[in-house]
């Protein structure tokens, strides 16, 4: 059976939804003739035509603004940010209009904003960021971060069908490095459900996006020492799977929160609060965070490598926590 890459899985998901639902269309910079900066929309212009695959000017604010308008008129737009870093240009449209519309006057805004994010690709400070937390802190939005090809496809389809604005963070580092065999049926991955990638008994590593693989690599290393990690992939950050998080913590009693995003105001802080509020009496050690430091993503490759959390960081912290 053919293996499907993460990036191809996103393309398939969009393609299938466009075949099924003519309200679905794509707009963004270079999505048409060029097929998208990462080729997610390759071949779509030929199949669906220029009314449904729309090349736009270089203005994220205009892209999201137009998408919101179309959604209010009954369409299901998918807006592509060429890099998640530039989503900041559309911040007002997303946080003040898309997120609040349903609460202000009952009109949902069913848009999907695709945001290629993440480092490890030597993209420098403007092409490597993980800006998810601006949106996790905005009630009215949904935020997902798939880590596998299966989830990439299942979550883009779920996002397109969702009645509310969904920010879809796709990790550039995973685009062509991750591949798997996908089922041929029409599946979705529900928003708000975590997945356990590795069952373990000693420490829960709760993470998302590309860091899932960092955690799994560390787990393999630690297995040799008899330290058994459980690796949880959150998949969705808003809403996140509170019950799964608490269940895992109650099982292992020790927890490492891992993300590629920087530390202060990162998702780990929120998780740590929830865990200490709701599972304090199940903790057998301090809640530990492993994150990028509080700096922009460096351009220099050695510095970038230093900046990103690594399997060796997880191994070190897990050993400390295990001994605690």
């Amino acid at each position: 059976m053919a293996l499907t890459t993460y990036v191809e899985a996103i393309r398939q998901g969009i393609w299938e939804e466009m075949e099924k639902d003519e309200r679905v269309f794509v707009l963004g910079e270079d999505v048409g003739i060029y097929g998208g900066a990462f080729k997610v929309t390759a071949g779509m212009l030929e199949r669906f035509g220029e009314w449904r695959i729309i090349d736009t000017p270089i203005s994220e604010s205009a892209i999201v603004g137009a998408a919101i308008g179309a959604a209010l008129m009954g369409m299901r737009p998918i807006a592509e940010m060429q890099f998640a870093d530039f989503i900041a240009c559309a911040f007002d449209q997303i946080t003040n209009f898309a997120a609040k519309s349903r609460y202000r006057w009952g009109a949902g805004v069913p848009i999907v904003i695709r945001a290629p994010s993440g480092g490890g690709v030597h993209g420098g400070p403007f092409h490597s960021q993980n800006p998810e937390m601006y949106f996790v802190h905005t009630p009215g939005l949904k935020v997902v971060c798939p880590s596998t090809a299966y989830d990439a496809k299942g979550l883009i389809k779920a996002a397109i069908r969702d009645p509310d604005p969904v920010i879809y963070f796709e990790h550039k580092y995973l685009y062509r490095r991750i591949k798997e065999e996908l089922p041929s049926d029409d599946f979705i991955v529900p928003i708000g459900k975590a997945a356990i990638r590795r069952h373990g008994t000693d420490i829960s590593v709760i993470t998302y996006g590309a860091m899932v693989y960092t955690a799994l690599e560390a787990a393999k290393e630690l297995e040799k020492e008899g330290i058994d990690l459980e690796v949880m992939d959150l998949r969705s950050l808003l809403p996140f799977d509170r019950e799964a998080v608490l269940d895992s913590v109650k099982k292992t009693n020790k927890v490492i929160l891992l993300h590629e995003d920087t530390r202060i105001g990162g998702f780990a802080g929120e998780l740590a609060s929830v865990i200490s509020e709701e599972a304090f009496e199940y903790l057998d050690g301090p809640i530990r965070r492993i994150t990028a430091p509080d700096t922009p993503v460096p351009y220099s490759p050695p510095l970038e490598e230093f900046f990103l959390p690594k399997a060796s960081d997880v191994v070190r912290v897990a050993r400390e926590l295990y001994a605690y």
Partner: protein
Amino acid sequence: MAEIKVIMPQMGESIFEGTLTKWLKKKGDRIKRDEPLFEISTDKVDSEIPSPASGVLQDVLVNEGQTVQINTVVAVIGDDLPASGTLEGAAPAPQSRAESTEKPVKTREDRSPEVRSSPLVRRIAKEHEVALAALAGKGTGISGRITKRDILSYIEQGGSVTKTGLTPPAAPAPPTKPAATALQSSALTGDGERVPMTAMRKSIAEHMVHSRRTSAHVTTFFEVDCSRILQAREKSKPDFERAGVKLTVTPFFVQAAASALKRFPIVNSSLDGDTIVYKLAINIGIAVNIEGGLIVPVVKSAGEKNLLGMARAINDLGERARNKKLTPDDVKDGTFTITNPGQYGGLTGTPIINQPQVAIMSMGGIKKRAVVIDDAIAIRSMIILSLSFDHRVIDGATADQFMADIQKQLESWQA
């Protein structure tokens, strides 16, 4: 080491006295710190009181059945006798700490040697009634910290574990009958045994009469088809079992009530003089039958729980109520109450409102009955729900709309 005076603790903010119902140790017995020493009963909770210190129970100053004010000295614990070290598991108290025990009344002063652990370890210790001091110096964690593995293996090896309820003292005292019994009964008047009310009984009696005097009780009845929730229960049972939760029908009713209370905030209110106080939280009390009376532990923030969380909370409260492990907080701040006479076969009930709340719902038994649906006779699992409400605050129309809301939710339950 000086004598430690053991006092009657305060078991809740508005509680000023308690009845010592049972001594779990006799005068002269050795006792370890945190080992249950006596049982008390207040008008809110019954609980076991752990010993504040290790030593020998030198004096017992209050008899079983006696009610005393809080902070009254009920017993004295003295120095361990010469054969120190034979006390299994008790760690030697460091010199510097022993000094602080000189202050007699402050029972918390007698901290055993500092033992580092974790919230989880302390919880396990409490559940298994292990004094952590027994593991002092045996921790394998960083800085000698006691870890989960340490305490679990200690318990597995027998440790100094005493099961809940405690192994009875070596020579249990014969059950003391109330002294008044024989004297007062008389063949002529036909009276049988005369038994003084327990603290709990008295408090129930007082609350019930007080409520009847306070509220204008009216009761309304609703018949509800339970087919959907029974199906939902069958469907969800295995999932819940995997999560370690036994799913009964009660959580469905509690959840329906919590949801309806959001839409009918007046039912979730109380009356303060001439002012109606709408409660922010939806905290649902569930009447639990326990030995010698009943108690109403409260599911806090019931409006925010999903079915799993609700079932877990209800099971936990019920179990702790029966094991006398409720804390004063568990029975506080209820805003609405549900009682379930149906579990004993009751058809329905007209319950008395739990003051200062304004309504109480009663669940009858679920029973298959012949009902008419679209002019055909069908067999359906039916329940009669009733709501006693305070007509000073809630009108019949509102009460019935509230109950119709619950009925509709239960009859259209989506598994």
